[in-house]
């Protein structure tokens, strides 16, 4: 089909002006098709621009409407506050006042506060639990003399019998032994014994860490310790200018539920003066009764005294 001959049947209704152009195009045959296409393109572009404009207008409208809602809400809130204030004033002036109905918001706030307090209580007691789909999940929190330390979890299944599904208890705590003894028969005792073990371990570790952190200048090298922190061996000195560490101590924590040593062996290094033997004996008693880092703190404060006697 030659361009310019035949009719270009419009695919969609054209505006009057465009119709003319098409007719015109037929007269100038070589440009006909291209001009037509150009015209279509321009039209489409215009339509798109117009559509975008209307959309933007709509969006703007929606935003403003939302803003209006917001402001209305604020206004209502403020009105409520003002009413409350007025009521309070009336009440203060001796009028018979109905206790203002606590607003829903106040009730919610009170509920949240009391739940938080409850959770705080659970945390403070050290053992808290939550029912799960298949049993209970316990959380044992440890602390030592006011400092909160790590928490450990136990996921227990209750059917067919009570068993430990998974846990985050350190591997060196004798969990299986304790479970074998008490888990089936007396869960409370099981939790209590486990909590004792964990708290004592946390306490021993805390003491050893404190010692290494704050009194490292009084200790020769690093402490020899182990995972359970139930055997500590080190050489130490009382604060003085001397560079030798005349005392050697071996602390044995025989009771895993206790954070004080059951056995203390202090000896003086071979080249230490004999006079220190007495001090060693005094220290031995101290280590048995007082927390490790506190013993060293007492050394520091007793520096003014003769021989560093406790």
């Amino acid at each position, binding site marked *: 089909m030659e361009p310019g001959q035949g009719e270009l049947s419009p695919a969609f209704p054209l505006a009057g002006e465009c119709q003319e152009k098409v007719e015109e195009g037929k007269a100038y045959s070589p440009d006909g098709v291209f001009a037509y296409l150009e015209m279509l393109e321009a039209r489409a572009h215009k339509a798109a621009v117009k559509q975008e404009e209307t959309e933007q207008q709509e969006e703007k409208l929606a935003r403003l409407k939302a803003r209006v809602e917001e402001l209305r809400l604020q206004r209502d809130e403020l009105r409520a506050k003002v009413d409350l204030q007025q009521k309070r004033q009336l009440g203060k002036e001796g009028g018979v006042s109905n206790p203002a109905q606590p607003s829903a918001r106040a009730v919610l706030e009170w509920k949240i506060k009391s739940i938080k307090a409850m959770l705080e209580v659970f945390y403070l007691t050290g053992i808290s639990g939550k029912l799960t789909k298949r049993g209970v999940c316990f959380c044992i929190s440890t602390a030592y003399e006011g400092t909160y330390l790590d928490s450990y979890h136990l996921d227990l299944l209750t059917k067919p019998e009570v068993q430990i599904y998974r846990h985050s208890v350190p591997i060196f705590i004798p969990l299986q*032994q304790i479970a074998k003894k008490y888990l089936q028969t007396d869960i409370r005792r099981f939790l209590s014994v486990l909590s004792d073990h964990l708290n004592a371990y946390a306490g021993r570790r805390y003491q050893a860490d404190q010692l290494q952190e704050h009194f490292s200048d009084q200790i020769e090298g690093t402490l*020899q310790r182990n995972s359970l922190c139930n055997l500590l061996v080190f050489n130490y000195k009382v604060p003085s200018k001397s560079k030798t560490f005349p005392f050697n101590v071996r602390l044995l924590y025989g009771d895993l539920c206790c954070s004080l040593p059951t056995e203390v062996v202090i000896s003086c290094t071979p080249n230490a003066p004999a006079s220190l033997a007495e001090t060693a004996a005094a220290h031995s008693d101290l280590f048995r009764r007082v927390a490790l880092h506190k013993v060293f703190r007492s050394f520091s404060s007793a520096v003014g005294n003769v021989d560093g006697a406790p």
Partner: protein
Amino acid sequence: MDETVAEYIRRTVLKIPRDEIKTMLQKWGFLSEAQLQTINFHQIKENISQEVVQLCEENSADIKQAAVLDIIYNHIYPNKRVWSVYQMNKTGEETEFFDLTDFKKKFKRRLRSALKNVTINFREYDDNAIWIRIAWGTPYTKPNQYKTSYVVYHSQTPYVFISASVLKSNMPLLCQALLVASNYCDIREMELRSHSLNSLKDIVFKRYSQNFQTYYPRPLQERNVAPESADIRIIQENKNEKERIQRLNREVFGDGPQPKLEFAQYKLETMFKSDPKMDVLDKREPFRCLVKFSSPHLLESLKSLAPAGMADAPLSPLLTCIPQKARNYFKIREKKGLFPGSFVSP
């Protein structure tokens, strides 16, 4: 200084990345600060190692000190070796008083009584980890410093991490010495292997993140909430499904990073289930097949399977039980009994 020691030190220094050489030598502590100042750490490693060897010559280094440098290197780069986990058992229930000096003495004595030609070195770290380096010889030859085994043991735990050398024949000896020193009765190899020592520790010491349900008021973690697309015309059709998958994923994998394993291997000894008419096999015998999943970080990739849409959530328990069962080698046999299916062998 012995020729072999010099060569060993030279080769060890060459292994260290150039930027780390100075810090590692400082940790080693065998060369004084003044001596270290004389080394030019910006030249090529060949020359650095030569200078180090010369200084060690001045200080008359022996094999023990050279071995310490090797331990330090392996402690900082443990992932260059493959580690296996061994589990020990004991019958008694007395309280453990792990004494380090006692442990070292017993270990050395037991090992040396069986094989005189060994080099044994110990090094302790802050996290109660004891690193043992053993260079093996034979009854007739000196210890070969390039054929070393490494043992990492945390006191009062039943797990030992061993990176054996090529000579597997010395394993029984090593295991014996460990049992005697740590006061346990027997030892067996677990089906758990990886390059990442710390991840193995995380798995057996249960240090990885498990999602425990508690009432403890943790601060609400900012979950990765994808910003709502600015264009409100785009709607998430599968929002519920996506949330379900996220929830299941968190229940199974927890919130934190996963331990790093490189592969999981499943040995199938199950019957091939086919249409009887197809008659693929003449006899009814188990179809032996090995399925191996490999990845630079297997558990993270498993965790991202369901959210990426590549697998259905929940994932098969065979895949998700890996950290909890502390194994990445499985044998799956036919379940004998009423219910056909498969079960994982202990």
